[in-house]
């Protein structure tokens, strides 16, 4: 293979003259994590609400929740990014749309919203499965004690469901980190985008991609280790830490 390896490239000055290529990549990682964490807040909040209303006895709430999940699951993430970035500002009232387009961090905010909503549909699936895996008696016991439906959810069902769905939620969190790379198509300079830029400036294709791969792996390992500690603390005693039978397909 005729390829000139040059691993020292990471310590050379990047064209933006603010630091080495290494610091560019680390900076990219910071953007990746910021995007993923901010989007995760939205995903967890919205996903919990949608997932919960899909288990209520009210048919219309269930249908609303189902429609929400189907909407976000059946359109590719890339297309959703374009919808949020290019289409939404045009559909809003003119002044608001222009303000949106001129925001200093437009691509970051768009990416966070898009990823948050996209992942919320998947979180909703998990939360629904978690509540569904509880035995029917729990809900009945709650209402028999005189709790209202919201109280039953608040004090009986949700505390158990969250402990059960933690493992699948961990993998959703890793997905959100990986999926944030799609934001490079709307100009967010996160890790993959910076790797690509580095490759274009230096032509050191494989060094750049190796570094990015290692960084993603590193983040993965950290998340897995942290979550393992949390899972141990939170696991319901007597249950073998098994997640509800969640669909295997997915990213």
């Amino acid at each position, binding site marked *: 293979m005729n390829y000139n390896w040059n691993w020292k490239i990471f310590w050379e000055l990047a064209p933006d003259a603010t630091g080495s290529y290494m610091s560019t990549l680390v900076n990219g990682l910071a953007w990746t994590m910021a995007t993923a964490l901010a989007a995760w807040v939205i995903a967890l909040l919205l996903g919990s609400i949608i997932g919960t209303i899909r288990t209520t006895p009210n048919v219309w709430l269930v249908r609303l929740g189902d429609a929400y999940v189907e909407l976000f699951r*059946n359109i590719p993430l890339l297309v959703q990014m374009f919808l949020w970035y290019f*289409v939404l500002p045009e559909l809003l009232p003119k002044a608001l749309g222009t303000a949106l387009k001129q925001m200093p961090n437009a691509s970051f905010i768009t990416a966070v919203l898009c990823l948050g909503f996209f992942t919320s549909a998947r979180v909703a699936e998990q939360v629904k499965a978690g509540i569904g895996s509880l035995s029917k008696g729990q809900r009945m016991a709650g209402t028999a004690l005189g709790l209202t439906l919201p109280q039953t959810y608040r004090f009986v069902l949700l505390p158990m469901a969250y402990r059960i769905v933690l493992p699948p939620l961990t993998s959703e969190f890793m997905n959100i980190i990986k999926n944030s790379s799609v934001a490079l198509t709307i100009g967010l300079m996160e890790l993959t985008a910076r790797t690509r830029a580095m490759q274009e400036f230096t032509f050191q294709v494989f060094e750049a991609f190796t570094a*990015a791969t290692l960084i*993603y792996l590193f983040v993965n390992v950290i998340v897995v280790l942290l979550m393992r500690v949390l899972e141990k603390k939170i696991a319901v005693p007597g249950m073998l830490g098994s997640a509800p039978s969640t669909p295997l*397909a*997915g990213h």
Partner: protein
Amino acid sequence: MFANFDFDVIQRSWKYLFFDGMAFTVYLTALAMVGGIIFGTLLAMMRLSSIKPLSFAAGTYVNLLRSVPLLLVIFWFYFLVPYIGAWIIGSPTPIKVGAFTSSLITFILFEACYYCEIMRAGIQSIPRGQVSAGYALGLNYWQTMQSIVLPQAFRNMLPVLLTQTIILFQDVSLVYVLSITDFVGAASKVAQRDGRLVEMYLFVALVYFVICYSLSILVKRLQNRIAIVR
């Protein structure tokens, strides 16, 4: 809101969108599905193998590719495939690989990891006794796999395999970053040429939604049918 929309742009370009763009997307999805399921099943058999190096290699490969974003993998292989090709045929310079071949290899190798996990669960769902029974009848490993384990594993996992294929169909849109004319790529070319981003992207979203939603309903029906028969 829709007053100054120009839906004429779709009428003008739908032939290009579907016969160039969507045809590419569907073709790539179909080939990647077949290749991915075959390679994924092999990987699953390796992962479950009692030969340690084999299961270690397959496990490492699957876990590695599952922990990096698909976009990064697409970039990796876009640049790596010409070098691997040159290495295989012993050419001193990187060979020229078309965008289609490059993305097909990427999707087969990447989606195989996800198909592998599905097939692994499928194989593990078959009781050990059936494998032992196969051996007791004098079948060897490949015969047992081929005529006892894999047919049942495929059958049990068919709905999940198909759901994963719907996801693959959506993932193919990411070849957009290589400026390939898939469905999204074709739409964005027309959109930028005619300055009609809003109409085009809404149309693309609608088409994807209709296709994926119908497919997922079909998969659900199939799942019910299989569940009743078993």
